[in-house]
């Protein structure tokens, strides 16, 4: 009996104890996407340069923001990259600090759109993407976002779910095409709701679309430019639409955790990430479209990115405040009209 008790006590005592790090550590929170490329292009070179250790936490922005909120009193991460609207949400919840852009040597090289996306000095854009419609040019012609709902086309359309990053921007553009620019998106949601049985699917993962396009399940889908590359490799003709209402999209931004003890190091890291060299490498690997306007990429890479001053200037983005204030309403309207 005694032996058994000692054995179980010993087992319990074996819980691993983390070795305390001696060197400076910077903890960052990023999207769980292209992490191999980020490691070789951004993280490893930065560690070598700063003589510090990078701890990388990944996840989608909702769960990462929830974590930041839970650790508000005692922040774990030092900087995070989130969407524009999530940055505003973090500002409203008092989770992030102003970014001292004077300490960012590469700040002046950014497109104006990326310098202060929410107009509050709390975030800096590092990449953006256009959202438009990928479509089978041999089967249809897309000149307006409203063309997606034409009776002869709608049965071959995959539309992004409102819960995806592409959903609200695509609905916003559809609304513009239908003559409503109200960010409550009621008009476009109602229009999609009327055709919900015809629309092939409301997709949640854009990675699924290439297969659906390949097997002729769909002819058209609104997508982010970052998933365009897969469509160009198909053996069917697929085009990127330039609808008359324009293209929409989104921007991802860097934010600094309030109360972080490594703010200087975090600023160095942001500056490094925004440098022409790093942004060029990320662009050439098709990881992220550059926010640094000095970046020059090959034609092939440019074709797969959201690239160039004109493209960037003409993106119709939903303002963060409008997105944030309407999000719950969008989901409710969507679930009431489309979701069932």
């Amino acid at each position: 009996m005694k032996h058994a008790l000692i054995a179980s006590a010993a087992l319990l005592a074996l819980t691993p104890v983390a070795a305390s790090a001696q060197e400076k550590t910077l903890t960052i929170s990023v999207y769980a996407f292209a992490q191999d490329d980020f490691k070789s292009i951004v993280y490893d070179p930065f560690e070598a340069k700063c003589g510090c250790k990078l701890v990388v936490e990944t996840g989608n922005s909702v769960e990462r923001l929830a974590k930041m909120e839970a650790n508000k009193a005692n922040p774990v991460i030092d900087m995070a990259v989130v969407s524009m609207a999530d940055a505003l949400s973090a500002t409203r919840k008092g989770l992030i600090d102003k970014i001292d852009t004077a300490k960012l040597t590469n700040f002046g090289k950014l497109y104006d759109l990326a310098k202060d996306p929410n107009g509050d000095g709390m975030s800096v854009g590092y990449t953006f993407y256009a959202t438009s419609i990928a479509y089978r040019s041999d089967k249809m012609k897309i000149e307006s976002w409203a063309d997606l709902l034409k009776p002869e086309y709608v049965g071959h359309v995959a539309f992004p779910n409102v819960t995806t990053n592409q959903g609200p921007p695509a609905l916003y553009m559809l609304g513009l095409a239908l003559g409503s620019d109200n960010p409550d998106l009621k008009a476009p949601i109602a229009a999609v709701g009327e055709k919900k049985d015809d629309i092939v699917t409301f997709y949640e993962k854009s990675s699924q679309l290439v297969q659906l396009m390949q097997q002729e399940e769909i002819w058209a889908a609104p997508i982010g430019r970052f998933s365009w590359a897969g469509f160009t490799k198909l053996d069917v003709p697929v085009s990127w639409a330039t609808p008359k209402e324009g293209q929409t999209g989104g921007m991802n931004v860097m934010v600094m955790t309030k109360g972080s003890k490594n703010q200087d190091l975090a600023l160095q890291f942001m500056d490094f990430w925004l440098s022409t060299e790093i942004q060029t490498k990320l662009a050439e690997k098709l990881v992220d479209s550059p926010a640094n306007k000095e970046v020059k990429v090959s034609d092939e890479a440019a074709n797969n990115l959201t690239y160039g001053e004109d493209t960037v200037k003409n993106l119709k983005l939903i303002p963060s405040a409008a997105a944030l204030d309407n999000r719950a309403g969008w989901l409710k309207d969507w679930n009431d009209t489309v979701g069932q």
Partner: protein
Amino acid sequence: MFQNRTEALALALPAALFAALVFLLPVVILLSEGFHIDGSWTLSAYTGFFSQSLNRTVFLRTFKLGLEVTAVSAVIGYAAAFAIVNLPPKGKGRMIGLVTLPLMISPVARTYAWIVILGRTGIVNQAIQGLGLSDSPLRLLFTETAVFIGLLQLFLPLMILSLISALENMPKDAIPAARVLGANWFQVFWKVILPLTREGLVVGGTLVFTGSLTAYITPAVLGGSKVLMLETLLYQQVSVANDFVAASVIAFMLIVMSFAANILLKRLATARNKR
């Protein structure tokens, strides 16, 4: 085996503590979120959940699909298991191997295969058009039918395997005895096979029903957001709406439905036995 119970309990202690700390406790905390809102105990999260018609639809659809998959897999499962049990040993081994094979393939891969099979240009639609049953391809993907087919394929092996082991444990001469005494095949099944294999049916039924309720990939890929199920709704609530209270409500219902299915199936089995 042990000299006293205490010794056995002491040996079980680390495992029990581990399970309590990293499994039971978090589950209790998670589930309590649905009842404990703004500092007081209330059922408002549950009444709020069911007041929305989308949630009611999703709940009923999940329950209905779970029942359908369980019932159909029981019918197919009995036939398949009966055929396999009566094979010579070598053939039986091979057939059991074939039944088990899909379980070794990732559900993601299996589900994606259905996208190809059920697509407009897939083999099912080709056959339907080839046989002249329809002029244009039918829409099969992203429908309840697709989710049903996917779930059935996913969980049928569990039912077949449970029933095989139950049928093997059945006395060999029970069926010939019943036949000699004049029972027809329906009576043989209803009065002999079913009561004698009820344990297997309960195990298989519970596995299939709970599996269908809690499967995520199949409804997400084959149904998408047009065929929301509780699991896909749960994902939406957590990762999009960040609404952990609603998620906790869904999780609680899934657990209750799983337990209820198990208890109900056991009851049905014993009730038949008593007669």
